C-alpha cells in the first residue's frame, strides 16, 4: 500500500459536487452485465480467485470478539490457503496472504502481535464505528489511539447526516480532520452507502471524501441494511476515475459487507478491471471487506485443483 503516493487531497469544489448526477437505472443496467460480459475459466479463473483471496481485509467486527478468535483470524490471514493447494497451484513462492486484518480498536494490539513479521497490516475501524455519532472529539482521539496501538490503516465512518442534508463543507472538514489524525496510517472512508439513499449522494460523498484526503473509499460498515452492491460500486469507482483524471491521484476502493461467494468477488474484480483497469487489482488500490468469502474462494480453488466440488470443513476456519 505504501508503494503509491498518498492522496494529499485538494480544496473542496462545491460546483463539481453539485454537478454530479448518477442515473440509477443506467447504472443498474451496466451493473447487471458486468458479470455476463466477462468470465474466466480454468487456470485464468484460478488466478483470479487467488487474486481475490489476496485482496481481502479479513474482518471480525463483533461485540463478542475476544483475543482468542482474533488470533485465530490472524493465523488464517498468514496462511489463507492450504499448503497442498498452494503447491498444486504452483503459487507457493508467491506466499499468498490476505491484504489486512480488520478489527475494532480494542483488538488492535492482539492483532498487531499476532501478525508480527507477516507484513500484513492491521486495520482498525474507528470514529464511533458503525454509526459515527459519538462526540467528535472522541472520534478523532479514537483514530490516534488506534494508530498508537499499531494500526496502519484506519477505517472511519462519516456522519451520514452531512450527506443527507447536503452539508458538503461539514463532511469535507470531518474527513479532513480524520485524515490529519491518521498521520502515516492510511485512511479508508466508509460512506455507509446503504444509508445515503441515492447513488447521486453516494457519488457526491465519494468525491468529497477524496478531496478531503481519503486513501480509500469504502462502501459499508457491514451493519447497514444494504451493503456493497455493484451499482453503488459503479457510482464510487467512476468518481475515483474522475479524481485520477483530474489530480493524477489513484484512490483505492473497498466494497464491504455481503460479499460471500467467489462468484460475487469475481464480479467486483471485473468491475474494477473494466472501469478502472489492472492497477486496481492490487491491495494498494482494492480490498474486499469480508470474512466468509475466504472459505468460498478456498473451496473453488480446491475444485480447480481436484476437479471435485469441495467442502468447507476441509479448510481451516478463520
Amino acid at each position, binding site marked *: 500500500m505504501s508503494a503509491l503516493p498518498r492522496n494529499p487531497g485538494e480544496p473542496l469544489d462545491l460546483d463539481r459536487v453539485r454537478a454530479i448526477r448518477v442515473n440509477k437505472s443506467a447504472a443498474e443496467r451496466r451493473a447487471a452485465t458486468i458479470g*455476463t*460480459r466477462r*468470465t474466466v475459466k480454468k487456470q485464468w479463473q484460478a488466478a483470479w480467485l487467488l487474486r481475490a483471496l489476496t485482496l481481502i481485509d479479513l474482518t471480525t467486527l463483533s461485540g463478542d470478539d475476544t483475543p482468542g478468535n482474533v488470533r485465530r483470524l490472524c493465523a488464517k490471514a498468514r496462511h489463507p490457503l492450504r499448503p497442498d493447494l498452494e503447491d498444486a497451484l504452483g503459487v507457493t513462492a508467491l506466499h499468498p496472504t490476505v491484504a489486512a486484518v480488520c478489527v475494532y480498536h480494542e483488538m488492535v494490539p492482539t492483532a498487531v502481535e499476532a501478525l508480527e513479521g507477516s507484513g500484513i497490516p492491521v486495520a482498525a475501524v474507528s470514529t464511533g464505528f458503525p454509526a459515527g455519532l459519538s462526540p467528535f472529539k472522541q472520534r478523532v482521539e479514537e483514530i490516534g489511539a488506534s494508530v498508537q496501538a499499531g494500526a496502519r490503516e484506519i477505517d472511519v465512518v462519516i456522519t451520514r447526516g452531512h450527506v443527507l442534508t447536503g452539508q458538503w463543507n461539514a463532511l469535507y472538514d470531518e474527513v479532513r480532520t480524520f485524515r490529519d489524525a491518521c498521520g502515516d496510517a492510511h485512511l479508508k472512508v466508509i460512506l455507509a452507502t446503504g444509508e445515503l439513499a441515492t447513488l447521486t449522494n453516494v457519488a457526491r460523498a465519494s468525491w468529497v471524501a477524496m478531496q478531503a484526503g481519503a486513501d480509500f473509499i469504502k462502501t459499508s460498515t457491514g451493519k447497514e441494511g444494504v451493503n456493497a452492491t455493484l451499482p453503488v460500486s459503479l457510482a464510487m469507482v467512476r468518481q475515483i476515475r474522475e479524481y485520477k483524471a483530474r489530480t493524477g491521484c489513484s484512490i483505492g476502493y473497498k466494497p464491504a459487507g455481503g460479499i460471500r461467494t467467489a462468484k460475487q468477488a469475481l464480479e467486483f474484480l471485473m468491475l474494477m478491471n473494466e472501469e478502472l483497469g489492472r492497477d486496481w487489482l492490487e491491495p494498494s488500490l482494492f480490498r474486499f471487506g469480508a470474512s466468509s468469502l475466504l472459505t468460498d474462494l478456498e473451496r473453488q480453488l480446491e475444485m480447480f485443483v481436484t476437479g471435485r466440488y469441495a467442502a468447507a470443513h476441509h479448510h481451516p476456519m478463520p
Partner: protein
Amino acid sequence: MATVAELFQSMEYGPAPEADAPARAWLAAHGDAFGHFIGGTWTKVGKTFETFDPSTGKSLARVSQGTAKDVDAAVAAARKAYPAWSRLAPHARARHLYALARMVQKHARLFAVLETLDNGKPIRETRDVDVPLVARHFYHHAGWAQLADTEFAGYGPVGVVGQIIPWNFPLLMLSWKVAPALAAGNTVVLKPAEFTSLTALLFAEFAHQAGLPAGVLNIITGDGETGAALVNHPKVDKIAFTGSTEVGKIIRKATAGSGKKLSLELGGKSPFIVFEDADLDGVVEGVVDAIWFNQGQVCCAGSRLLVQEGIAETLYAKLRARMEKLRLGPPLDKAVDMGAIVAPVQLERIRSLVEQGRAEGAQVWQPSWPVPKTGSFYPPTLCTDVFPSSTIAQVEIFGPVLVSMTFRTPEEAVALANNTPFGLAASVWSENINLALDIAPKIKAGVVWVNASNLFDAASGFGGYRESGFGREGGREGMWEYVKQMGDGRREKGAASRSARSPIAHLPTPISPAPAGAGAIDRTAKLYIAGKQARPDSGYSRAVVSPKGRLLGEVGDGNRKDIRNAVEAAHAAAKGWASSTGHLRAQILFYIAENLDARRDEFAARIGAMTGGTAAAGRREVDAAVRRLFTYAAWADKWDGAVHGVPMRGVALAMHEPIGVVGVAAPSEAPLLGCISAVAPLIATGNTVVAIPSEPHPLAATDLYQVFETSDLPAGVVNIVTGERDALAAVLAGHEDVDAIWYWGSDAGVTAIEIASAANMKRTWCTSAGVDWLDAAHGEGRPFLREAVQVKNIWIPYGE
C-alpha cells in the same frame, strides 16, 4: 500454457468458449443439409446454398433455395391449415403459444448457440437478450390468443400471412412475426434471411414436436427471389417484412392494389441525443448498448450521436476510453462484447462507408487493439467532425460505427434528430425530466428511450415513422396488424367504382343553365387553402351538374400547384394543431357541428340537388354528419394512448401521435358525410388535412369552408382542393412531404396511390369498396382513429 502464477500477475481473461457440440450435432443429424419445413414435415433438399459461420468463414450447412413451386406448396399448406387453426377456440390457441414459449425455454441454449454460429453475434447476446425475448414474446402472445375474442371483438384473423425477416435477429424477428400472427388465428409462411436460416428451421421442427398443427407455421428458405415469390403470391393475405427501406419500397409497390395487408419495419439512422446535464458515464454505457450491440447491425441502433457542444470533447474522451476496453473476438466466447459481422459483403459495405466518411473529412477513431485477421470482424468506430451533409450522417451503415455531431440548444437537437428520412427510434439523455419529456414527443420516431437504449419488450409496440416503415410489432398495437374487421364491407373491392358516378367530363352535354333566380347573386366556390378562399392556379373551373344535367355551380379545377400550396399550408398549421389540446380540438369540432346544423336545410338541399336524392335523404345525411362531428369531438380528448407494463422499473408510454399532414380523397358518394367522415377523425387526433372532395358532387365540401371559417378552425388545418380526384390524389400520393393518404375510389386509383406512396413510405388507407356512410358501425369510430394516429412508445426508466 500460462501458469496460474503468471496469470496472477497478468490478470488476463483467457478464453471462455461456449460448447457448440449440441448445435453441430443437430446439423449433423440433418446431414448438414435442409429442405423447407412445409405442412409439418421436411421437404426434400433441393438446390441449395451454403450458410456460413461468419467468425470463421466456414460452411455450417446447406439450405434449400426456395422456388416458386416451394412457395406454392407452403402457401397451400398454410391455406389448408387455416380453417381449423382460425376456428380454434382462443384458449386452445393460447395453449399452443404457451407451449411454444416453454419449448423455447427448454431448448434455450441450443437456440442461442446455433444463432451465434450462424449469425456471428456474441453468445452473451443470444443467451441473455435474443432467446429470452423470444420466449417472452410467445408468453405475451399466448395472452393475446387467450383474450382475442374479448379484446378484439368483431375482428378475426387476416388469413395466410407471408413473413420475411432479416439476418440481424433471426430468431427474435421470427418470434415478433410468428407470435402475433398465430395468436390472432392466422397461418404463416415465413422466409428467414438467406444468411441465417438455421434457427427458424430448428424452431419449426421443435414447434411441430410441441404439437403445433401441420401447416400452421411453414418455413421456406431462400434469397430475395424466394421472398418475391412469397410477396407476389395471390393466395397470401398479408405481408409482414423487416429489412431494408429499399426492399420495403419494392414490396410496397409489388403489393399495391392487391388488397394485401402490409406491415413494414425498415431501416433507421436513429439519433442518440445527449444533453449537458446527462450522467455521462451512464451515457457511455448507453452508447455501448446502442451501437456496439450486435456489432451495430440493429435497425434501431443509436447510430447518430448528437451531443451538446459544451460537453462533446469530454464525452468523446470517455467513449474512446470505453471503446479501448471492449473485447471483440470469437462470438462463442462468453467474455466478448462484439462478435463477427454477418457476412463479407456487409463487412465490405461498412469499410467502404467509413472510408467515404474519412474522405469527406470525418475523424475516424478506432481502438488500438488488433482485430482478428480471419472471419468478418470490424472494430468499434467513432466518427467525429461529421455534419448532416456527410454521407455517413445520412446513410444507414448497419455496423459498429457511431457518427457524432454537436448541437447548441434543445431546438437544434430536435432539428438535427429529425433531419433524416428515417424515424425508427431515438435515445434522449438528460437528468432533467422536463427537458427529456419535452424532447421525446418532438422526435419523429416510433420508439424513444429516455436515458436508455435498445430496450425491447413484447408488451410494447415497435415500429417506425416515415421511411422506417409502418405497423407495430408487440403489444396491443402490434396485434392490430394481424386482424381484420369481420363482415367488413370495406373489403368488397370495386363496389365504390360501381356506385360512383361517371367522371364529370363524360356528363351529357349540353349542360342546361342554372335557373335564373330572382336576384340571386352568382356564387363562386373556390379552393380553400391556408384558411383563405383561393382561386385555382389553372384559372379553369369545372361545372357541377345535377343528375339531370342542370348546372348547379362551378368549382375550381385544382392542379398540382394547388396541392403543393395546400400541403404547405397544412404543414404550417401542423405543429400548432398537433400540440393543441384535445379539449380545444373537441370544442372546435362541436362548434363546426353547431354551425353545420344551423345550415341544415341549405346543405340538405345542396346534397339533394347534386345527387338527385330526396330532401329527406339530404337531411339524413346532414344529420349524420352533425352526429359524426359530435362523435369525433367526443373522441378528441379521449383517444388515449396506453401505459405498457414492460418488465422494468419505469413506464413505456404508448402515445397516440398524429401522423402529420394527411391527404384525403373523399368518397364520391355521400358528398358531405363522406368528406366529414374522413376529415373529422384526422383533425380530432391532431393531423392537418388536404382534402379532395367528391369529384362529381364537390359543392357540399366547398360550402363547408364557410362553416369552418365561422367555427374557429385554425387556418391550414383543413384545406380543400377541388378537381379531378385521381389526378390530384396522385400528386398527393407522390408528394414526399405528405405523411399519409386516405383514398376512396377506383381499383386503378388504389393501385396507383399505393405505388406512388412508396416514394416516402407514406401510410395509405385506400379502398375501392363502398361504405355505407350512414351506418356508424362502418362509417366511424375506432378503425378511423387507429388509422389517424401512429403509436410512439416512450420508455422512461426511473428511480433515484
